[in-house]
């Protein structure tokens, strides 16, 4: 751009790991007072580029200029001192310390060699005031929502660094209201003249907040374009390198609606989690659950899968009431559950892709009847091929795979048990666009082969695409059941928003 010197300028940067190129000759320019989105599928080189800018990696070639001066940050602290701060998706603060302590950790104001708590609290209050955040800075950070923790993290980064702010998927675990609050802070920082690099999987948010977009693919720069007037399909095709297939709207066989339900919930509920609800799920049917975070979506799935015990109601499978007091009992009925939080509830990180794929089947068979090594390998190879799981080796620990591939391994783990009923909680959250489309296709495919599915998703567009029916939850209550032509994002939004005066949003 012709206007004054850019704030941050990356020129011809390359980086390779073990001889495999992760970034090749990439340029990137950030102006002061700009929100610049960095987009690309997982593995496109976004995090490598960010880590080079923030000093976590050393570049092999190229140069990085901050306000025209070449910089060589040795590590993250060095980059912070130069003026480049980072806030990650998982807030890396200490939630057991107070807000003020988090803001000033490692640089506490001192008085006679001791921390001057009063001064620290006063300055913390002043800093947060500028963000319109009026909270008790002496309370532990854990008392506040993730959104507020994010703002505190941003405030700390800005206070230390103050020129360039990198936001790495800051909105992944926030609800719509919280995202708005975060964006207000970002806009304010932009107005102050900071340069902000924004990484997100949510294209809507990118359109809302970003001024320009840089797309990377396979370690190469595809293009840098202004957001205004950018066609969405064009953007997605830049990211994927191919034209995305037209939206898939599933045709629903009218006969399924008549058949006997496979799973019936009658008055199923648990106090403080979800109010009693009735629901039938038939074979060959996808029932979608929509609602805001905290509306009781995950809680419903946990009751059905026996993770939490219901205090009212019954679950029947094929007409017979069953005792669903543990996941083992649910699995024995042919149930399967892919949880929302893959890291803590899903993957067994240190174990290999092979072991993770055969895991549920092995658990079901019991320890006395092990799958032989060759059976395990055959099973793993079959699902790696069928679901197109990208891994260099089936013996690679699953923690080294990208989010989308971890999700596919979890799907494979359950498909290997040949379930009748599959529950998916946010199956496409935080995964790249390519894997996203594949997982949606898989959901439709499984359904057409006669499986019953219960899918929870915040992405209403995709939920509308594959669901035969959608139930809407609000404030731990089922408020609506949409069928046939009623299934549309508009109707879902209306159901969520209708007479919302009483409930809290989160």
């Amino acid at each position, binding site marked *: 751009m012709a206007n004054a010197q850019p704030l941050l300028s990356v020129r011809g940067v390359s980086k390779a790991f*073990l*001889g*495999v190129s992760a970034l090749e000759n990439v340029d990137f320019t950030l102006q002061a007072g700009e929100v610049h989105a960095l987009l690309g599928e997982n593995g496109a080189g976004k995090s490598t580029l960010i880590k080079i800018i923030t000093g976590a990696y050393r570049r092999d070639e190229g140069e990085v200029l901050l306000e025209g001066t070449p910089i060589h940050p040795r590590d993250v602290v060095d980059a912070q001192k130069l003026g480049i701060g980072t806030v990650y998706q998982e807030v890396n603060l200490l939630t057991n310390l107070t807000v003020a302590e988090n803001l000033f950790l490692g640089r506490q104001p001192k008085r006679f060699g001791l921390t001057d708590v009063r001064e620290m609290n006063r300055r913390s209050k002043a800093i947060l005031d500028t963000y319109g955040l009026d909270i008790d800075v002496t309370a532990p950070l854990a008392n506040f929502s993730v959104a507020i923790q994010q703002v505190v993290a941003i405030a700390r980064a800005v206070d230390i660094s103050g020129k360039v702010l990198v936001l790495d998927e800051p909105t992944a675990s926030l609800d719509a209201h919280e995202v708005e609050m975060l964006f207000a802070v970002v806009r304010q920082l932009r107005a102050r003249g900071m340069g902000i690099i924004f990484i997100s999987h949510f294209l809507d948010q990118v359109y809302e907040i970003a001024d320009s977009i840089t797309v990377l693919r396979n370690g190469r720069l595809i293009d840098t374009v202004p957001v205004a007037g950018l066609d969405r399909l064009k953007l997605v095709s830049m990211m994927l390198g191919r034209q995305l297939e037209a939206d898939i709207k599933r045709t629903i066989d009218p006969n399924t609606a008549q058949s006997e339900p496979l799973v019936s919930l009658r008055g199923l509920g648990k106090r403080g989690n979800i109010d009693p609800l009735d629901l039938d799920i038939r074979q060959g049917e996808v029932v979608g659950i929509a609602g805001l975070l905290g509306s009781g979506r995950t809680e419903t799935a946990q009751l059905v*899968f026996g*993770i939490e015990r219901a205090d009212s109601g019954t679950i029947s499978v094929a007409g017979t009431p069953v005792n669903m007091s543990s*996941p*083992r009992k649910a*699995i024995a009925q042919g149930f399967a*559950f892919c*949880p929302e939080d893959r890291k*803590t*509830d*899903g*993957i*067994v*990180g*240190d*174990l290999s892709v092979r*072991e993770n794929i055969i*895991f*549920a089947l*092995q*658990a*079901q*068979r*019991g*320890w*006395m*009847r*092990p*799958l032989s090594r060759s059976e395990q390998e055959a099973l793993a190879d079959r699902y790696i091929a069928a679901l197109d799981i990208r891994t260099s080796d089936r013996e690679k620990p699953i923690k080294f795979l990208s989010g989308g591939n971890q999700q596919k391994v979890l799907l494979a*783990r359950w498909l290997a048990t040949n379930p009748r009923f599959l529950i998916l909680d946010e199956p496409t959250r935080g995964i790249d666009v390519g894997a996203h489309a594949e997982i949606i296709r898989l959901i439709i495919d499984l359904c057409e082969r006669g499986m019953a599915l219960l899918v929870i998703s915040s992405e209403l567009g995709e939920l509308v695409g594959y669901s035969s029916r959608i139930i809407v939850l609000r404030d731990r209550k089922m408020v609506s059941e949409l069928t046939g032509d009623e299934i549309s994002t508009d109707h879902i939004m209306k159901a969520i928003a209708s007479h919302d005066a009483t409930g809290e949003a989160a």
Partner: protein
Amino acid sequence: MAVPTIVRERTPQLIVLVVILALNAIISPGFFSIEIQNDRLYGSLIDVLNRGAPVTLLAIGMTLVIATKGIDLSVGAVMAIVGAVAASLITSGYSLPATLAGSLFVGLACGLWNGALVALLDIQPIIATLILMVAGRGIAQLITEGVILTFNDKPELIFVGSGSFLSLPMPVIIWVVVAILAILVVRRSALGLLIEAIGVNRRASTLSGVNSRVILLAVYAVSGLCAAVAGVIAAADIKGADANNAGLWLEMDAILAVVIGGTSLLGGRFSLVGSLMGAMIIQSLNTGILLAGFPPEFNLIIKAVIILIILIVQSPASQAAMAGFRTNRHTVAVKTENREHAAR
């Protein structure tokens, strides 16, 4: 095919063991000589295998417990309880089989107690097993009524500690058999995988249908059983039950053996073979220090220093440094490979 993998994975332990044995041989030239007297093998090396029996047995159970991200501090105290039970049963006139069965049963019960606290009540393992560690020696004293209960006139029980079979001391036979059994059961069944999975991520394992509680109960029970076997051997060896000193501090040696053997205290991947080597390393160290004839007040300090060196060599920092050295060479290999790839 399995043997080379085991050897390759345990190279650091093997090197340490060889170095310590070599040092022992330098200190006492006759270290590697083995001779047969009265149809039984004698020599320092046999002594290492024999004296190492209790720690080795404890390390087997401890490995499984640590793999589930737990720890069992009570094993030394369980040895004392079981020794007391064995001594009082045999002196009350029970037969050897009845005595052994009773002793093993008590060890199993101790293990189940720990397992119940951990698996059912979700008490942190270090605290749960601390309870029995503290109470155990008191229980043992109650059983022996405060005295060292001797059984000099019971050769059948003494045989377990100092007899020999096929020219090998009984303790060696026992630990080798227990070790082989444990390795076979854990690796030939799916138990090893399930134990590792619980150690890595117990919640995800439970959600995938693993009966985590039963498996946790089982590993603590196995640890109790192993401690029981060790307790019987220790009592039979001194022909009496010493409630205060039997198995004293051995839980620490067992934990050390597991860690030296390459199993992380954070749970997950474990190696029984590694732990056995770790136990042998510790025992060689003990024997070597005794053979060297240092003043006894130095023994513990020398042991601590050597173990510190072993752990520094195995620490992630030095492993990373060594890996860095290795990848430099690896990078070249990969680059050549890529070039070939591109040429095709």
